[in-house]
C-alpha cells in the first residue's frame, strides 16, 4: 500500500512539473548583467524542481492557486473613486508604478539622504551589485521547509521593482504607489531592502497594482536596524494578488509590518521571517475587510534561530456576505533558540453566517526555555456589547461599526507611527460607512 501511495505521490509531482514546464514555455528570463542573471537562473531552477503551486499542496488547501498561476490573467475592472489616496497627507518619497511598471514622470527623484534607491531594471544591468547578497537569497532561504513557488517565479521573471539600501536614518518614508489602469495587467514586482547596521526606514505601499500582482519584498535587516512597513492593498474588487515578504533579522533589530486589505477577489499574503541574531523583534499584523466575492489569505512563517527574540502575529479579519478568510501561521523555534517569546493571534469577525474563516495555527518548538502561545477564534458581533451601545442611544449601524473597529484595533495598534495608524483607521471607517450607505 505504501508503495502505491508513493507512486501516486510521484505521479502527482510529475504532473505538476509537467504543468509547470508548460506554463514556462515561451517565457524568457529578463536580460541582465551577471549578478541578476545568476540569481534569476537559480530561481528558475528552484521553481522547476518544486513546480508551481497546486491545489493539493499542503499550504494551498484553503486557497486555490490556479488564477495566480495560469497564463491568462482574469480581467479586473479598474475601480473608480474620487477619494484621496491613503497616506496622502504624509510627507514621503513617492515611487509610482503603473500596472507594475515604474513611472518616472509621476515619481519623485530617487534622492533621499541616507538611502540609495535604484530601479531593479537599471541595477540588473550591472555585473556586480550589493543586491546580489539579498536578491533571491532571502527568497531561496524561505523555500524550506515550506515551498513558495510563486516567489521563485517572481525572482526569475520580475523585471521591475526597487532596490533600497539604507545607510543612515531615512528622514521620511519611502512610499511605493501601485496604480492599476489596465483591466488585464499582469504585474511582477520584486523589491529588495537592505538596512545596514543601526539604520532605520519606513516603507509604505499602497494601491491595487494590477489586475494580477505577484510581488516579492526581500528585507535584510542588519544588527540594530529597524524597518517599519505599512501597506494598504487597493480597493479594486476583482484584483488578485500573491505577495511575499521575506525578512531576515540581525541582532537587536526590529521589523514591524502591517497590512490593510479591503476588497480584492483573491489575496494571498505570505510573510516569512527569520531571526538570525539575538534579541530581535518582529511584529507582523494585518486587518482585512471583505464583503462578498472575497478571499484573503495570510500565510506566515516565523523561524526563531537565535536567542531571546520576540515575534508577534496579529491578524484580524472582518467578513460578510460569503467572504472567506484564511490564516496559516507557524512559529518554528529551532534548537538553541532559548528565551523565545512567540505570540500568534488570528481572529475573524463573521458578520453573517455565509462567511467563513479557515485557520491553521502551528507551533513547532525544539527549545525548552520558550514562551509561545497561539489563539485562533471566529465569532459574531458581541450582542451584549451591541445592546449596551444602543441602549446609550447609538444606532445599530454605527454601534456595529464601533464594535468592528474595536475588533480590528489590536492589529492596527501594531502600527507605531500614530499618523499612519490614523490613516489606516480612516480607511477602515470609510469602508464601514460605505457599506451602511
Amino acid at each position: 500500500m505504501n508503495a502505491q501511495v508513493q507512486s501516486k505521490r510521484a505521479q502527482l509531482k510529475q504532473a505538476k512539473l509537467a504543468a509547470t514546464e508548460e506554463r514556462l514555455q515561451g517565457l524568457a528570463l529578463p536580460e541582465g548583467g551577471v549578478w541578476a542573471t545568476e540569481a534569476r537562473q537559480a530561481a528558475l531552477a528552484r521553481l522547476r524542481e518544486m513546480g508551481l503551486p497546486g491545489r493539493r499542496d499542503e499550504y494551498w488547501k484553503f486557497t486555490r492557486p490556479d488564477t495566480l498561476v495560469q497564463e491568462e490573467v482574469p480581467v479586473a475592472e479598474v475601480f473608480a473613486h474620487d477619494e484621496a489616496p491613503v497616506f496622502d497627507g504624509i510627507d514621503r518619497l513617492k515611487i509610482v508604478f503603473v500596472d507594475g511598471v515604474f513611472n518616472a514622470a509621476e515619481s519623485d527623484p530617487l534622492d533621499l539622504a541616507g538611502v540609495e534607491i535604484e530601479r531593479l531594471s537599471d541595477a540588473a544591468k550591472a555585473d556586480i551589485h550589493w543586491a546580489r547578497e539579498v536578491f533571491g537569497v532571502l527568497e531561496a532561504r524561505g523555500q524550506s521547509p515550506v515551498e513558495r513557488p510563486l516567489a521563485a517565479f517572481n525572482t526569475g521573471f520580475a523585471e521591475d521593482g526597487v532596490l533600497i539600501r539604507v545607510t543612515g536614518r531615512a528622514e521620511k518614508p519611502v512610499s511605493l504607489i501601485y496604480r492599476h489602469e489596465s483591466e488585464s495587467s499582469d504585474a511582477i514586482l520584486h523589491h529588495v531592502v537592505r538596512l545596514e547596521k543601526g539604520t532605520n526606514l519606513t516603507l509604505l505601499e499602497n494601491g491595487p497594482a494590477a489586475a494580477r500582482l505577484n510581488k516579492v519584498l526581500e528585507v535584510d535587516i542588519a544588527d540594530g536596524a529597524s524597518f517599519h512597513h505599512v501597506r494598504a492593498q487597493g480597493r479594486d474588487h476583482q484584483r488578485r494578488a500573491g505577495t511575499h515578504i521575506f525578512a531576515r533579522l540581525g541582532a537587536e533589530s526590529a521589523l514591524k509590518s502591517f497590512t490593510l486589505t479591503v476588497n480584492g477577489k483573491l489575496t494571498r499574503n505570505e510573510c516569512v521571517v527569520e531571526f538570525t541574531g539575538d534579541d530581535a523583534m518582529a511584529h507582523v499584523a494585518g486587518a482585512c475587510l471583505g464583503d462578498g466575492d472575497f478571499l484573503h489569505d495570510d500565510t506566515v512563517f516565523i523561524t526563531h534561530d537565535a536567542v531571546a527574540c520576540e515575534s508577534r502575529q496579529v491578524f484580524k479579519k472582518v467578513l460578510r456576505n460569503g467572504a472567506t478568510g484564511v490564516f496559516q501561521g507557524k512559529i518554528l523555534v529551532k534548537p538553541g533558540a532559548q528565551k523565545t517569546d512567540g505570540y500568534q493571534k488570528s481572529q475573524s469577525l463573521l458578520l453573517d453566517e455565509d462567511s467563513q474563516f479557515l485557520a491553521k495555527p502551528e507551533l513547532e518548538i525544539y527549545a525548552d526555555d520558550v514562551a509561545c502561545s497561539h489563539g485562533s477564534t471566529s465569532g459574531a458581533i458581541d450582542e451584549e456589547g451591541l445592546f449596551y451601545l444602543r441602549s446609550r442611544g447609538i444606532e445599530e449601524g454605527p454601534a456595529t461599526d464601533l464594535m468592528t473597529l474595536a475588533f480590528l484595533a489590536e492589529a492596527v495598534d501594531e502600527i507605531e507611527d500614530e499618523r499612519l495608524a490614523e490613516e489606516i483607521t480612516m480607511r477602515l471607517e470609510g469602508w464601514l460607512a460605505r457599506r451602511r450607505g
Partner: protein
Amino acid sequence: MLEIKGLRVKLEEEDKEILKGVDLTVEPGRVHAIMGPNGSGKSTLSYVLSGREGYEVTDGSATLDGEDLLDLEPEERAALGLFLAFQYPVEIPGVGNMTFLRTAVNAQRKARGKEEMNATDFLKLIRAKAKDLKIDAEMLKRPVNVGFSGGEKKRNEILQMAMLEPKMCILDETDSGLDVDAMKLVADGVNALRDAGRGFLVITHYQRLLDHIKPDVVHIMSDGRIIKSGGPELAIEVEENGYADIKAEVTA
C-alpha cells in the same frame, strides 16, 4: 411619565413567563424603588423597558410620556430619554470610554435635533462630571468597562447617566458591590440629577441606598408581579423582616 400596564413577558426561547402582569407608574420628579427577592423579575423589567432582545411581550403596555416604548429600537428609547444603569455593565474591549460617551451624547443630540457637542466642550463637561464621581481621567481613556473594578463600573454607569441627562432613569442594583463612600458618591450623583421633570426607578436589595436617595414610593416585586407598594417605611420592613411576611400577607 413612565407608565407600565399589565405587562406580561416570557422568554423568547423558552416557554417561561417571567413578568406576570406588572403595573407601575412613575410620575415626573418622583423616585420609585423596587425591591424583591432574587429572580423575581426586576432586571427583566428593566431590560424589557430598554429593548433588550430575547424577551417576548405577550400582554400589556409600557409608555414614556405617552409614547409606546415596546415597539422602538433600544436607541430610539434612549433618544426619548430612557436610561438604564445596568446591573452588570458590559465590557467592550477596543472601544475607548471617551469615544463611546461622545458618540452616545452626540447620537442623542442628533436624534433630538440638537447640534453636536464639539470636542472641547465635551471634554470640559466630562472632566467635571467625572471629578464629581471621583472617576480618574485615566479611566476615561480605557476601553469601556474593561479592567474596571465592580465599583468603578457602577460609577461609570452614573457618569453616563450624568452626561446623557435622561428623563427617566432606571438603576438596576447600582449600589451592589459599592463601598460605603462610593455609595454616597453614587447617591449624590443621582440626587444631583433629581428635578421636577425627571423620574427614577431604583432597583435595590438594600435599604442603605434609600437612606441616601429618599424614595417617594417603594414597590415589592415577587414572582413577576408587584405585590405591594408603600412609602419608604416598606423598605425598612423588608430590611428587618425579609420578604416572607409580605408574601404571606399578600397570599392570605
